[in-house]
């Protein structure tokens, strides 16, 4: 990327709050139900219905506001109607917040190239989600034979988190979203999975010559569905903007879409996007007032947040920063890890297994640790077998896969497969004798000073025991025999 230009990015994150019921009615927010089964007169906008605000939604937003260090939480915020016609919006307006959002002026810290950087948060506000359209005969409403609408998602609570234009690279944008996702998931207010749509991200991006104070004209990158797509999309858009400026073109303020297939951003038709939303205060809802008591109550509920956890893992448990990062990035992994620590003090060992074999398996299967059969108890038991010398680390790598896949304990697996480690000296000695007899040339090489021959002989011994021989003992005994 060019050094001539500075990149300026601001992000708008929509987080679906994981409350049981919708923001303005009692309908379930459960995902994946039959279309139009989680609906009622209120969330389908029947004539005469009125919204009532879900208290849990407010609680979640206040918790988030505290975690994001918002300076203004206390006091009044106002719901407004954002008006536009679209079939997925039953009232043809969305109840949102406009000039008086729930919280303002916060910040979070991310780590960029091993040094901390603060990203400002402009505001947090609440709103309702729209429904889902299914187009038949085309992938958009224009040109389709007909379209169907599913109102299950209508009224699912959304929290919009708007950042300051403090982000200076696509990589930073990715780090910011990851950090925010981690915070939201630790707070238990959002599943924070971009791939599943529980976290959505729109990015405003512009470039300006280094040293210039005024912002350049920005474009908006909409609907990216992973942090990777966000980073790639922003990178592509930066390149496009630089090329445009370099060839004397002007940047047009417009909404663009990142096409993962071509790796390019394309303009959405601006005609469809040209809206006058005619915001005005929602007369059916009274102003939302956040009191000191509500803030204090929410604060009690906030556990250890990701940054603090990483710090503790590194400082108190002596994990590497990378290991701590990886474990903390997934709330379920960290919870698993901490449960293991209740019956084991081998933090480093545990973390190696968790970020190594376990994570590799989970990634391959695309599941979370909760969906695997591995439990903290089973992992700790396996570590104990290694410590006792019952199994080798190498064997354990096979055992852990079975721990992840079956209900069996490490002990049961080892017994069944006969893979217990051989630590009986006489037994190993017998095997070594056989190996030495078969490989007279290597023995001669070693004695002639070719030390590498030792490795070969160890390997042969291990092979003969199918990896079950205690490697320490093998080394020790071989050395003794060869120098005899």
């Amino acid at each position: 990327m060019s050094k001539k230009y500075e990149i300026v990015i601001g992000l708008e994150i929509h987080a679906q709050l994981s409350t049981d019921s919708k923001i303005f009615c009692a309908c379930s927010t459960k995902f994946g139900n039959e279309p139009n089964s989680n609906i009622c007169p209120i969330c389908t906008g029947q004539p005469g219905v009125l919204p009532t605000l879900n208290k849990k939604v407010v609680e979640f937003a206040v918790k988030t506001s505290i975690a994001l260090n918002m300076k203004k939480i206390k006091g009044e915020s106002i719901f407004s109607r954002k008006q536009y016609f679209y079939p997925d919006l039953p009232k043809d307006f969305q109840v949102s917040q406009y000039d008086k959002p729930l919280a303002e002026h916060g910040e979070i810290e991310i780590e960029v190239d091993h040094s901390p950087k603060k990203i400002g948060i402009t505001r947090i506000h609440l709103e309702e989600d729209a429904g889902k359209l299914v187009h038949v005969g085309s992938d958009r409403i224009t040109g389709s034979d007909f379209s169907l609408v599913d109102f299950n998602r209508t009224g699912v609570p959304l929290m919009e988190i708007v950042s300051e234009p403090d982000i200076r690279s696509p990589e930073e944008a990715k780090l910011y979203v990851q950090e925010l996702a981690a915070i939201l998931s630790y707070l238990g207010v959002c599943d924070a999975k971009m791939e599943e749509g529980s976290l959505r991200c729109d990015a405003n991006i512009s470039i300006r010559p280094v040293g210039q104070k005024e912002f350049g004209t920005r474009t908006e990158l909409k609907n990216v569905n992973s942090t990777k797509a966000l980073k790639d999309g922003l990178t592509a858009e930066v390149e496009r903007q630089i090329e445009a400026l370099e060839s004397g073109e002007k940047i047009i303020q417009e909404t663009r879409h990142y096409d993962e297939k071509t790796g390019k951003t394309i303009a959405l038709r601006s005609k469809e996007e040209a809206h006058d939303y005619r915001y005005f205060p929602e007369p059916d809802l009274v102003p939302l007032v956040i009191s000191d008591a509500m803030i204090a109550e929410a604060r009690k509920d906030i556990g250890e947040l990701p940054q603090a956890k990483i710090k503790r893992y590194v400082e108190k448990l002596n994990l590497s920063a990378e290991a701590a990062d990886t474990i903390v990035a997934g709330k379920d992994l960290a919870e698993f890890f901490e449960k293991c620590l209740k019956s084991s003090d081998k933090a480093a060992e545990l973390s190696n297994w968790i970020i190594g074999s376990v994570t590799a398996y989970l990634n391959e299967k695309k599941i979370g640790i909760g969906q695997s059969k591995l439990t903290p108890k089973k992992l700790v038991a396996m570590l104990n077998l290694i410590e006792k010398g019952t199994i080798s680390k190498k064997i354990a790598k096979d055992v852990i896969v079975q721990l992840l896949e079956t209900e069996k304990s490490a002990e049961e697996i080892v017994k069944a497969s006969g893979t217990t480690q051989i630590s009986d000296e006489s037994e190993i000695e017998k095997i070594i004798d056989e190996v030495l007899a078969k490989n007279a040339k290597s023995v001669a090489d070693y004695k002639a000073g070719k030390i590498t021959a030792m490795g070969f002989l160890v390997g042969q011994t291990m092979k003969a025991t199918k990896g079950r021989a205690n490697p320490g003992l093998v080394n020790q005994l071989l050395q003794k025999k060869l120098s005899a």
Partner: protein
Amino acid sequence: MSDKLYTKTVHELHQLMKTKKVSSVELVTAIYERIEQVDDKVKAYLTLTKAAALIEAQKVDKRIADAKEIGPLEGIPVAIKDNMCTEGVKTTCASKILANYIPPYNATAVTELEDDGAIILGKLNMDEFAMGSSCENSAFFPTHNPWNLKTVPGGSSGGSAAAVAADEAPFALGSDTGGSIRQPASFCGVVGMKPTYGRVSRYGLVAFASSLDQIGPLAKDVTDTAIIMNVICGYDPYDSTSIDKKVPDHTKALTGKLDEIKTVGVVKELLGKGISPEVKKSIEEAIKVYEKLGAKIKMISMPSFEYALSCYYLVATAEASSNLARYDGVKFGLRSADSPDLLSMYYNTRREGFGPEVKRRIMLGTYALSSGYYDAYYLKAQKIRTLIKRDFEAAFKEVDVLISPTTPTVAFNIGEKSDDPLSMYLSDIATIPINLAGIPAISIPCGLAKGLPIGLQIMGNVLEEEKIIKAAYAFEQKTKWHKERPKL
């Protein structure tokens, strides 16, 4: 007995039911006979629910037979303005766009009545989406004033007022956004009350202007009004704007005296220009009645009233433009046939479904909220609203209740103002400020001119319905205008 049952008030009927002289089935049957006799002329009803009503009446009769005590509305028929949702019964708002809409739920006010044993007779005509002052804006047919069938019954709750005046229902529910209960009550010579904003749940009332709409009763006298208020008022968790305060027994205010009401204020601006001489005369007589009742009379100036109409037509239309957006052909109500794409479905559905007055207000409101105009129109209107509230607050520091004519004139002829929306809007000049301030007010009969009723409006401070009812009842006891009935 049953020949004149339909003329009786709720409290008279209650006595007959309690003493088992009349059954609910007899009463319901008598009212439907009356409707059959006169509704061809009056045209108050859009939908009749006779079969369901008779089944309900039988149930209530069984309950009454076993009960020691019965509630004041048990077995009493009621008719509902067609902008309140009735589960399983068409709720049209007198609009083509909802001509076949059957709600899946009941408005809270309707549930309250049903829970107290009231029997729903049917749904009443109105100006489309409650927009209008004459009932001529109904998409189906105009309702006629029972006092003179050539004149309008007022609006938008014209069907409600006409039905009660023509003895086609002992009482009715209406809704009042800028005078829509009180103005037709005045034109039809019945009692109509708009409670404090938030006193009656709006849940299930099809919204016109959310910050102004309020459900209220139309009845034959003040006693009935107090009885119905006891049933329909109260907090509703389904309406965030409803007031969470205990509802008093409004019938305790029926003392016939003024008691704690020492000073009656007269709104100076509402006795000046634009008020017809016969209306002015009746109000002056009403003032004398209050003097005789022992009240001190005080002229009160409300300077902000000058802007009330403009303010109202910005706030109400802005909210309406938003509330009526949902009628888009997607989910319920009319969907225009032969629309090849989404935009034409929107355009055609709304073009065919809405009448001219509704379209006019949607356009006005959309304009007022548009980017670049919001501050100059909507925001400014909200500021004027604050001024109007302040004028009332100041007034109620000096007086206990305020009085004025409900309307500047008696009922006008059908067709007289249909082509002149501005002069139609002016007929709400005395009622609109009350909605803007959110305070309660009542209209009671106080005279007749050219064979048409005149209404006296009594206004009170927020949640002071009891004072209003007290002042109204004392007046009623002295004058008996409420006993006058149209000859049909």
